[in-house]
């Protein structure tokens, strides 16, 4: 049986791991390769590296980091952040990334999804969507959640699927950093209306939140950062708890 995935997310700036609370106030949480190896050994199913470097130099560091991660880590990993061209993706996949995630660049140029899928296949193209619920409506946001758009989350998600993306990583801006649980209502709607896997992101605080997002949110995978980085939740304990709740996991 296909299991539900637990995915630690490592925010990367200039080759170091950081985690923003509500995407500001960065805290340093260690060396990415070392952290990735620890997570792989502790039962993480997959890893996401999100590059928040704004400079060209930072981006070159990322390609090098991907190569170092691929050398050491025996589980799949996704790389995202600032990717805007077929060439960017080519370098990252060539260096050993299993999947890439695109976000703002897909909203600005939706054809990029089709181009990437045609060249590399659906299986390695994840579209990340940051959205915020404003007056009851979920609006897509850009640039790490800073810039609002008029795009509706569900309309955009369906277009993303139609253009061939293999997976959607949905982050609720209302929940991210709150540790109050995932946006399960929106997640369940995405998971029901679409036929590609949905990764839940934003709001993990307790083990119960993970159970809830798999049961109520119908998520295929759940992503979190600080609860793992600061050892508030151990992945092994989390998976045992999920198993007790009859959620299929890899133990």
């Amino acid at each position: 049986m296909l299991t539900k995935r637990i995915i630690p997310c490592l925010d990367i700036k200039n080759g170091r791991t950081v985690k923003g609370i509500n995407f500001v106030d960065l805290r340093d949480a260690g060396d990415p390769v070392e952290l990735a190896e620890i997570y792989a050994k502790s039962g993480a199913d997959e890893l996401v590296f999100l590059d928040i470097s704004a400079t060209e130099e930072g981006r070159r560091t990322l390609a090098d980091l991907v190569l170092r991660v691929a050398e050491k880590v025996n589980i799949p990993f996704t790389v995202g952040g600032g990717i805007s061209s077929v060439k960017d993706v080519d370098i990252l996949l060539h260096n050993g990334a299993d999947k890439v995630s695109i976000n703002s660049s897909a909203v600005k140029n939706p054809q990029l999804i089709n181009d990437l899928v045609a060249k590399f296949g659906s299986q390695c193209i994840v579209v990340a969507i940051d959205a915020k619920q404003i007056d009851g409506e979920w609006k897509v946001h850009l640039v790490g959640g800073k810039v609002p758009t008029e795009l509706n989350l569900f309309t955009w998600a369906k277009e993303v699927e139609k253009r061939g993306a293999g997976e959607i990583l949905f982050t609720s801006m209302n929940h991210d950093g709150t540790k109050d649980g995932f946006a399960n209502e929106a997640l369940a709607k995405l998971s029901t209306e679409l036929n590609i896997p949905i990764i839940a992101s934003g709001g993990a605080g307790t083990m119960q939140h993970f159970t809830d997002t798999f049961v109520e949110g119908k998520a295929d995978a759940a992503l979190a950062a600080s609860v793992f980085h600061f050892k508030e939740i151990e992945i092994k304990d989390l998976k045992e708890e999920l198993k007790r709740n009859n959620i299929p996991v890899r133990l």
Partner: protein
Amino acid sequence: MKIVIIDYGAGNIQSIKFAFQRLGYEAILSSDADVIMAADKVIFPGVGEASSAMKKLRESKLDLIIPKLKQPVLGICLGMQLMCHSSEEGATEGLGIFDVDVVKFSNKVKVPQIGWNQITNLKSDLFNNIKEKEHIYLVHSFYAPICEETIAEAEYGLGYSAALKKDNFYGTQFHPEKSSEVGEKILKNFIDSATS
């Protein structure tokens, strides 16, 4: 031990190379028919779309070499699918090593299947010391149905082939290079498999 990974422009070959490196073996990337034929073990990788990958293979004339290889050959993911008779994806004619037609998952399940699934009904030396129901990592939209050459099964809406074997040819739908310790054991078993 000379391990050659067939480099025809389709596949996450870096990860496979690193996986062998972690096991203490150096794998060479090559598209040269002589180098491939002289290898002790051959890895046939592949990700992406079937018809374009098959086109690349034909352009390099490797489609004529691979079916004639006598040493152990391991096709991974799309590599395994291209070793089959055909694929529904892009109406692709395969290498015909495995006598099975690759078809698409129905939309009763989410497509692609992404993640860790369990392998069962394990047969052949590829799964020496691997327990039933171990988890392996897969990403795919098309699958090979269960057939005579099936040596491992997985379940996703229906039972299908997680691995195939015929003579010296092995194929895994899953990615052993990304399947943690279990995958490493399977790669090691492939290295230890009989030379012909």
